[in-house]
């Protein structure tokens, strides 16, 4: 069954926390991965790989650059399920 946007956000926050140590409560829809959360490109790749595994979706490499905010990623994953 497809997860809701809230559930995807919670799952993504756990992945971000595991990779970077950032508190899950800081991972909010309007936050920018680079500007607000200070996530570098390698961590971003790791987060994408883990999100693909966790949510059973494929996030194409050319799409990763478009996922600027947490909300971009959550919406993409929610739609791709």
């Amino acid at each position: 069954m497809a997860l809701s946007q809230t559930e995807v956000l919670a799952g993504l926050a756990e992945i971000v926390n595991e990779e970077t140590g950032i508190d899950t409560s800081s991972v909010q829809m309007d936050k920018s991965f680079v500007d607000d959360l200070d996530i570098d490109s390698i961590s971003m790749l790791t987060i994408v790989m883990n999100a693909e595994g966790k949510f059973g979706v494929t996030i194409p490499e050319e799409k990763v650059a478009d996922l600027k905010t947490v909300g971009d990623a959550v919406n993409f994953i929610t739609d791709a399920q």
Partner: protein
Amino acid sequence: MSQPTLNQYSAVKFSRIYALGAARGDLVVTNDDIAGPIDSSDEWIQRRTGIISRRRASKDVSLMDMAVEASNIAIKRAGIDPSEIGAVIFSTITHPHQTPSAAALLADKIGANPAPAYDVSAACAGYCYGIAQADALVRSGMAKYVLVVGGEKLSDFIDPTDRTISFLLADGAGAAIVGPSDTPGISPTVWGTDGSHWSAVGMTASLLELRDGEAGWPTLVQDGATVFKWAVWEMVKVAKEALEVAGVKAEDLAAIVTHQANIRIIDELAKQLAVPEGVVIARDIIYTGNTSAASVPLAMDALLTSGEVKSGGLALQIGFGAGLAFAAQVVVLP
């Protein structure tokens, strides 16, 4: 008149690695030394790669010099005479001659002439390819001892302004002597290629383009995102399969020695493999850098010489890189 029955090689049951040898570039190159042309910093390079410094060879130290040094150490440690070496396999992508092979010259220089000798081009997977072939040559009875060398002088093929891979790269050679054994010492190898990503890591141009004035000196370049994803996601599967075909579990290992590509790849691989506490993860990259085909034997030798792991333990070794090529096997530490 009846046809005579052919003689064939008689097989030896098992093989093992007898000894390793290592030679690193004579220069210590810090991040500050190379950060300028890529508009970077020591902090950025450390955070992205784990590298604090890398070993590179002076202009007058050749790939062959390092290969000979590493080979002579391995031969001495193995306690064999070089004339007993039945084959020399040299894995390298930086031998500066299209032909003849680096291996033929190496065989002569170490006293193994007239052993059969040939180069392997499997980039960062090359040493593990060589161990797979050495295992097969020894167990088939084709050679009593095989010298496997992974060696690179990558600094001859870098662009100081390249931000994709050059700043990772280093020089060195690692050597192993493989020979017959009473007990199993090298597991089946899980190996292969994925040529659909042929251009993910490679050279900026071909020699023909250089000749025709269409390109400058070819240097190494990579698509970091593609390589990172492949190196973690696909190599986790390869590592798990290697353990399975070896008949061992991760908790049975003393060490995991991956190709020293980038500390972030090494750490993520270890995480995805759920490596149990107590299994040593080789991180030779921190002070050696990425030496392509040399990185696995150099990292394993460092663990043995520092005493972090002991002879007789099991190690999963896995090489992966340009091709894309990969190879993994479990070995008994020499």
